[in-house]
């Protein structure tokens, strides 16, 4: 199993594309290191803009560059862009329909040990509620590469959230990738597991564990959170039980999006696995995931419990809550 960091794959791909397209720009907010943009800045200084530690200004500058025909990618920690500059994202980018890509790196609990100030666990909820913005969470480096190529020719504002460390490859090199079109990675009729970002790999591992217990799971990579691939979710609900898994607050993210769709179109027993609505436990992201049961074992246990109670009322559930500890 090979591993790579999504942000490194992103930067490598962007640099490659930018050598051929002088309109491609990278912007940083003293985040060259965290976004792995040092080489880009050295090699393509005319296509690089350092904005300093000023995320609001950086989003505005990106909108202005886009107005002059440039294709800006603004790259830095997801926790700061999604909150500090959310009004600039709403107005300068989304409302104004500016062709700017926000690359939020070190999202979720990538900076798990640094505390809640550095956790980006409400970004999807915020960004998803902004009309006109596309929201994407790639699962691994190979998908990030395909996504980056797609974004270079996509017109319109997009928020991308990726992690910091190396993650196992879910995909082979050059996987098919279409914005808004989810990937069904495995088919099974007992339960459907829908994940995004780094949780996709864990979810595939979960399906193997469940298969050992005779439970066949569908696994879906919902890389685009908005626009949501509704058809694939409605089809997945045919299993009668759906579990969503995300590295995000349980409010407003992937689980909420799926629940909102299913409640209105195809009510289905469901569990929403994610990070609880509390000041989070700190540690490496692996330690935080373990603490809250966001592991193949934890997800498998939640799926089994859901299958047990599917004839009762669906229980509001979050990994790490009291429901999980039995």
């Amino acid at each position: 199993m090979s591993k790579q960091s999504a942000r490194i794959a992103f930067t490598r791909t962007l640099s490659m594309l930018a050598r051929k397209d002088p309109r491609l720009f990278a912007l940083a907010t003293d985040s060259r290191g965290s976004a792995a943009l040092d080489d880009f800045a050295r090699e393509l200084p005319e296509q690089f803009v350092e904005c300093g530690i000023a995320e609001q200004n950086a989003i505005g500058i990106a909108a202005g560059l886009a107005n002059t025909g440039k294709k800006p990618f603004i790259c830095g920690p997801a926790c700061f862009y999604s909150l500090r500059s959310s009004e600039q994202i709403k107005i300068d980018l989304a409302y104004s329909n500016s062709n700017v890509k926000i690359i939020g790196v070190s999202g979720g609990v990538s900076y798990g040990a640094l505390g809640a100030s550095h956790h980006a666990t409400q970004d999807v909820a915020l960004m998803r509620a902004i009309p006109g913005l596309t929201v994407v969470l790639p699962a691994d480096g190979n998908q990030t590469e395909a996504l980056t190529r797609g974004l270079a020719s996509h017109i319109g504002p997009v928020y991308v959230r990726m992690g910091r460390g190396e993650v196992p490859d879910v995909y082979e090199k050059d996987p098919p990738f279409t914005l808004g079109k989810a990937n069904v990675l495995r088919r099974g009729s007992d339960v459907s597991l829908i994940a995004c970002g780094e949780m996709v790999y864990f979810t595939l591992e979960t399906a193997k564990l469940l298969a050992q217990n005779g439970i066949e799971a569908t696994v879906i990579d919902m890389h685009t959170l908005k626009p949501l691939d509704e058809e694939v979710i409605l089809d997945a609900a045919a299993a009668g039980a759906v579990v969503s898994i995300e590295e995000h607050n349980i409010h407003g993210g992937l689980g909420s999006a799926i629940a909102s769709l299913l409640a209105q179109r195809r009510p289905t027993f469901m569990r929403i696995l994610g990070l609880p609505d509390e000041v989070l436990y700190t540690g490496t992201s692996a330690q935080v995931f373990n603490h809250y049961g966001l592991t193949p074992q934890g997800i498998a246990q939640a799926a089994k419990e859901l299958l047990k109670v599917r004839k009762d009322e669906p229980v509001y559930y979050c990994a790490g809550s009291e429901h999980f500890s039995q």
Partner: protein
Amino acid sequence: MNAGEIARLANHRRADVITMVQRAGNGHTGGALSSLDILSVLYYGVLNLRPSEPNWPNRDRFLLSKGHSVEGYLALLADCGFFPVEELRTFSQAGSRLIGHPNNKVPGVEICTGALGHGLSVGVGMALGAKRGRDAFRTYVLMGDGELAEGSIWEAAMAGAHYMLDNLVAIIDRNGLQISGSTESVIALEDLSAKWRAFGWDVTEADGHDTSALLAYFHGLQTKGRPHCLIAHTVKSKGLPFAEGDPAWHHKAPNADQLHAGYTALNVEGVAWA
């Protein structure tokens, strides 16, 4: 166009503004009128634009960061031919694209504004885009004085100087008032000129109603290596004697009698489109 002709047309645009606001029953009369001579000088005498081709790549860029002064902006865009003047009838009507803040669905509007403190950052991006693309156009950003309390303006001020954007002109409509009262009583701005100078800008102060001085300023910009800041001293609600300098008119509409008193004061018979 000469300064006298611009001053005359500016009063016609003032008549458009008070008519739009009176018909809508609401609007930002005070700031729209204080900035109108600046806007008129830009649109009639400075900006290089093609109204029939609003996205012409080499156009000068103008941003109304103080988006609440939209009425004057729309009146000028209409008069310059970006959309039919008759459409001003729809200002602030349900479903109209001529809404209470600039909206880039309207031809000639570069970007949506309305939340204060955004425009200068976008202007820095435009000016930097021009520099990097070796394009000759200039970028102009009109801000309110109350707006300068927004921290993002000063982030943009630093960036503009850092990138030596001598193709960027920030204009401050220094009417001295904001909705709660004088800027100095709400949150003091002075010494404003010294602040911009300290941030590395080429600062000039002028009478924001003197169309001749404004024209001379914009056509005479020479300084290289630094962005330009014009502190334009203005009077809120300029042109309406019963409202001039009164903060209550920041967001207030004239009644029918006041509208006609306004036409008389402006020496304008009325507006053809209404």
